[in-house]
């Protein structure tokens, strides 16, 4: 699902990180290896939380660097309403529209009109930008936060 929506594949040495278990990621995320773990975990665990966190960060970074690349081929994957030069102080509506679009695409469910998330994620963007001075990092933080939304994890 993450690969389809972000275009990012979490592969290691040519192998899908979550489809084979060479690194143990599949079992950490709650899967089985059919050798010593035969039953899927039925509830979220620490391993799942950590796998989700790191996968979300990697996928978010891939999206941002792709979408903000001036020489990219094809359309932006997710960041279609903002550019690398936009700031919330000058284009707040565009930021909120972008965040609405992120939720719609990544969770499949649009946020209600009065949802708090757009404003909160704009605040997150500003907070991260204030310590990183990087729009890439700020948008990576925002997209990874949406990818870790409970509706995505519980999907």
């Amino acid at each position, binding site marked *: 699902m993450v690969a389809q929506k972000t275009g990012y594949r979490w592969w290691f040495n040519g192998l899908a990180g979550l489809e084979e278990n060479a690194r143990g990621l599949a079992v950490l995320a709650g899967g089985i290896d059919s050798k010593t773990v035969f039953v899927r975990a039925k509830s979220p665990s620490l391993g799942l939380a950590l796998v989700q966190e790191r996968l979300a960060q990697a996928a978010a970074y891939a999206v941002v660097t792709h979408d903000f690349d001036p020489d990219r081929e094809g359309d932006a994957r997710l960041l279609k309403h903002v550019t690398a030069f936009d700031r919330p102080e000058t284009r707040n509506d565009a930021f909120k529209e972008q965040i609405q679009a992120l939720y719609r695409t990544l969770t499949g469910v649009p946020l209600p009109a009065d949802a708090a998330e757009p404003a909160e994620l704009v605040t997150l963007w500003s907070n991260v930008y204030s310590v990183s001075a990087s729009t890439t990092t700020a948008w990576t933080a925002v997209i990874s*936060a949406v990818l870790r939304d409970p509706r995505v994890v*519980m999907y």
Partner: protein
Amino acid sequence: MKDIRMKDLRMKDIRMKDLRMKDHWMKDLRMKDLRMKDHWMKDLRMKDHWMKPFLSRRQFLKGLAAAGVLSALPPTRAYTSSGEKKFLFLFASGGWDTTYVFEPKFGTDGVDMDLEASLGQAGNIRYTAGGRWPAVSRYFDRWASRTCLVNGVNSHSVGHDSCTQFMLTGTSASSTADWPTLIAANAKTEYALPHVVFSGPNYAGTSGSTVVRGGGGTLLDLVDADINGQADQPAPKLAIPSDQMVDAFVYERTRRFAPHRMGQGRAQVDALLSALDQASEIEGRSFEANLSRQGGGLLERALSALDVMRLGLARCAMIGVGYSWDTHGGNTPQGDNFEGVFTDLDELLSYMATTPGQTAPYLIDEVVVVMMSEMGRTPLLNGMNGKDHWPYTSVLLAGGGIKGNQVVGATDDRLIAVPVDFRTGQPSSGGSMLASEHLGAALLKLGGLDPNQYLNGVEVFDAVLR
């Protein structure tokens, strides 16, 4: 300053490996070295504590809440132990030859002993000593009083996989969790890493969420975000403040999501919240827990395991001890293997005896070391001077709650188990045959569980318990 200290510590690890090659007279120096290492680590942790850029995530989340950034705090769960025993399992995959340490069977035609073997004794423990494995004698000279050897344990099979499963679960049912998983899953205290599998076998049963795999490798890579630098399409780490800001947002978003779910869905969200909280805990304390300890050997992994236990982050750990134990084609490597294992075990017990525990004065009173192999080896050499699979094996127990200075369970002069009195552990014609499930029941009991709930009607091998 920090980097220099880390380099020092890595050098320390290298020096420790060198030290292990030294002779017996270096023993005291190793002890001092370990104490110094621990002292440096504490110093380093203190340094980390006052160097505020290294705020723990929990501190950071609280700081955000105090600043009004968050509308609510994550639950302040106290990751402290309730005094329950913790368990460090060491597993020698392949099947060790019990005659090298556990079963000194001299003067019988029914058992081939190593030509360099001799009888050793420390306290009440009679063991097999040998010129090629002097670390075994050193170990028992120092730790016999805290050690219990269990002989003649029936592992019910001669196949590696089935024996492993029997030794760790007492059954061949694939859905049954192993002893450490059961003990961790039924802890009175909530642990961030209930059962850490650094290496070696694990049967999670239906308690998959209890088990955290890859303690020294993949888990660490996830905790410190190195995993994304290893991906085919790599991504940089989010710097600590940004990473913590995202974590705080995700936690708060999930907390607000919870009331919208009912029944099983609510339970799932609550489990996710708990997992996010645990992730923050372990990410914030990964340095303190020294999870980045260099090296993947038995001692390094075991010390990491003890550190996460000492900090109340884990209750159980499993570590494969390494070495090639399946010696069909030549049996002499067994002695070298035991030399390596007991060298590390000696240092491990030294660390436990000198490192303050969380609920006991020292870790040696709080942590139970359980070292086993899935099977033994035949009493006689085969045509290649090797030994083949044998269903009776031995187990070493040491530390908290274990009745030390004794050998319990027994085999005859052909290495076949004999009945023993489960109260005393000594041979008795009216006794019972000891098997993996009886020993497992004792471990569950020591872990505060009711063995009957998991092993219906199985007698507890009480002889090992203090």
